[in-house]
């Protein structure tokens, strides 16, 4: 996935001279996850460059640059280190179009490696999506596969609105074919969720790092006779009600899976939307499988925190209390 992101950045830099890539250690080092590897050498340090170590400064100056016609793509080194930039993001980046009655749009992309599963120490594994999705004016997207990483990042850079681009860091090393290339990125569309696997009994709603986990769960569930559909949200904000609800109406059962803590989390929004729109189609309450409501744990305990295939399977089992319906559906 890191390679797909690198290619997307390179192609975007190539396609539009207004695109700039900057942040901490993104130049000679190529970023701590090597997503910007080789870009400074290829495009020069006027377009790909290291900044002083200051997240509010990175986002604040990106806002000024975008006001002046450029398309900054900035990197926050890790999820929890984006918090110093929170004020610039919520008070200005998200609101500039609205404040100025549409006259000043800010095509800024903020890339944030997020989530756990890499044995990182504290402050390196937060899932901060709910902070951003709660802020009107921001688009929040997260790829689940290498191919989608390329496509979503190209779309994010082309987008006239600010985009928080969450990169599931445990999937940086995931292999996969990148079929999209060139400037036009055919695909489901920037705002759209995608059915990654079709199934009839249960819908698993996942995004980012949990897409792979959900697909694995679906395989395991198939062995137990459950036909599981997997929806990859891709765009957390805006939310694609249409694709998600169409799936839930087909299956009548849904589980939302994410790494972040559940309380007040993004999954609560998904459950609420699905319940409001699909209530009469539901055979069981919509369940969540999430991280615990604790600070992200130390590396040796993170396996307990992160939603596992087993935990998702358990949730699916809990949805089957009207087994007759499921049984007849499967028959």
């Amino acid at each position, binding site marked *: 996935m890191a390679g797909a992101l690198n290619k997307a950045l390179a192609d975007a830099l190539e396609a539009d001279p207004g695109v*700039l890539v900057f942040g901490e250690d993104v130049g000679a080092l190529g970023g701590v996850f090597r997503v910007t590897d080789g870009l400074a050498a290829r495009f020069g340090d*006027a377009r790909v460059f290291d*900044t*002083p170590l*200051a997240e*509010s*400064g990175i*986002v*604040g*100056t*990106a*806002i*000024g*640059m*975008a*006001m*002046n*016609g*450029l398309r*900054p793509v900035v990197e926050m080194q890790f999820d929890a280190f984006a918090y*110093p930039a929170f*004020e*610039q993001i919520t*008070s*200005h980046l998200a*609101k*500039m*179009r*609205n*404040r*100025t*009655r*549409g*006259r*000043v*749009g800010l095509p800024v992309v903020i890339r944030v490696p997020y989530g756990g599963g890499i044995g990182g120490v504290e402050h390196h594994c937060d899932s901060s999506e709910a902070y951003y999705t709660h802020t*009107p*004016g921001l*688009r929040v997207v997260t790829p689940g596969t290498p191919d989608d990483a390329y496509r979503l990042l190209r779309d994010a850079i082309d*987008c*006239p*609105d600010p985009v928080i681009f969450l990169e599931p860091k445990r999937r940086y090393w995931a292999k996969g074919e990148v079929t999209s290339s060139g400037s036009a990125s055919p695909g489901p569309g920037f*705002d759209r969720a995608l059915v990654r696997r079709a199934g009839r009994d249960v819908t698993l709603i996942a995004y980012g790092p949990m897409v792979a986990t959900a697909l694995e769960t679906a395989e395991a569930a198939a062995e137990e006779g459950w036909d599981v559909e997997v929806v990859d949200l891709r765009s957390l904000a*805006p*939310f694609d*009600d*249409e694709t998600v609800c169409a799936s839930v109406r087909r299956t009548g059962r849904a589980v939302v899976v994410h790494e972040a803590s559940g309380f007040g989390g993004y999954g609560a929004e998904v459950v609420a939307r699905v319940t409001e729109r699909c209530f009469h189609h539901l055979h069981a309450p919509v369940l969540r499988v999430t991280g615990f409501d604790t600070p992200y744990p130390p590396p040796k305990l993170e396996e307990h925190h992160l939603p596992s295939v087993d935990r998702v399977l358990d949730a699916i089992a809990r949805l089957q209390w009207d087994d007759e319906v499921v049984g007849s559906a499967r028959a």
Partner: protein
Amino acid sequence: MARTRAPELTLLPSEEPLSLLREDGSPVEDSPLAMPDDDVLVELHRRMVIGRRFDTQATALTRQGRLAVYPSSRGQEACEVGAVLALREQDWLFPTYRDSVALVTRGVSPLGTLTLLQGGWHLGYDPYEHRVGPQCTPLATNTLHAVGFAHAARVKGEDTAALVMLGDGATSEGDTHEALNFAGVWRAPVVFLVQNNGYAISVPMSKQNAAPSLAHKGIGYGVPSVLVDGNDVAAVHAVVRDAVASGGPVLIEALTYRIEAHTNADDASRYRDSAEVAAWLARDPVDRIEAYLTSRGLLDTARREAVAAEAEEFAAHTRAVMNADVEPDPAELFEHVYATTPAHLREQAAALREELA
């Protein structure tokens, strides 16, 4: 006075604020600053008188309930006008909530300037039309926008400088320090104008800052710094003009005073005494330039009356536009959140439409 080159900008500000006019309006002979041309001085005076009248009018409109709140810049006209008139056409201004006089001096209409405070919308003018960023309320955040904007101009090969205004209190915010550091490293053409008016709401300088001056803060960032008398419009104009011409970052601290309370909602008597206010009233920036221009024969009674009449007309226009009731269109709530309105906002817009039908 024939000197044309700007003095070398240094990291260390002078111990005493630079000035061109003494408090009584007599010229300072050995100032390192070049006195602005006569026509510039005459224009500075005119705009200060208009600006002050506008400010008084806005304060009055607040009392009549036409504005939700108004932060007056009375007493700070030399900074507001001197700095803005030092900008070239292509330069940008990044103001704060207090800088309404700077806005009208830059050509933004009274209604455009006051729309934010009137409550009709968050901004009343097109930033690109006037090269003025939205007035900034979160403190110091605009400093970074100015640095980014100026850096982008450099990248695009444009000769554009950005002037960002901030208060003494705002210099304590992290963003000010990040902005000065970025500007220093990038050599961005940004002028930071700190209007040190003595207080951040109620908090005095003694509780805000331990450095010898706020201008001293430039040293650590490699940003040349100037300390200037902020009630001397000739001096403020000269330092901003020279800073813009330098093509790099400059930090200017202008020593001035806020004559009114922080806003109409504030009770300034709780934290400062009337003797202090009286002392500053005696250093009035408008009186000072008037005394100088009069002594030079550049301002006579007829001209003074003409300027006063113009200011009166500007105030009357301001009253007229502000006395019209505004009824913002609720549909607009949903229009400018994203470039294209997403489904959930279209639904909410429809629901509100129905509710109002």
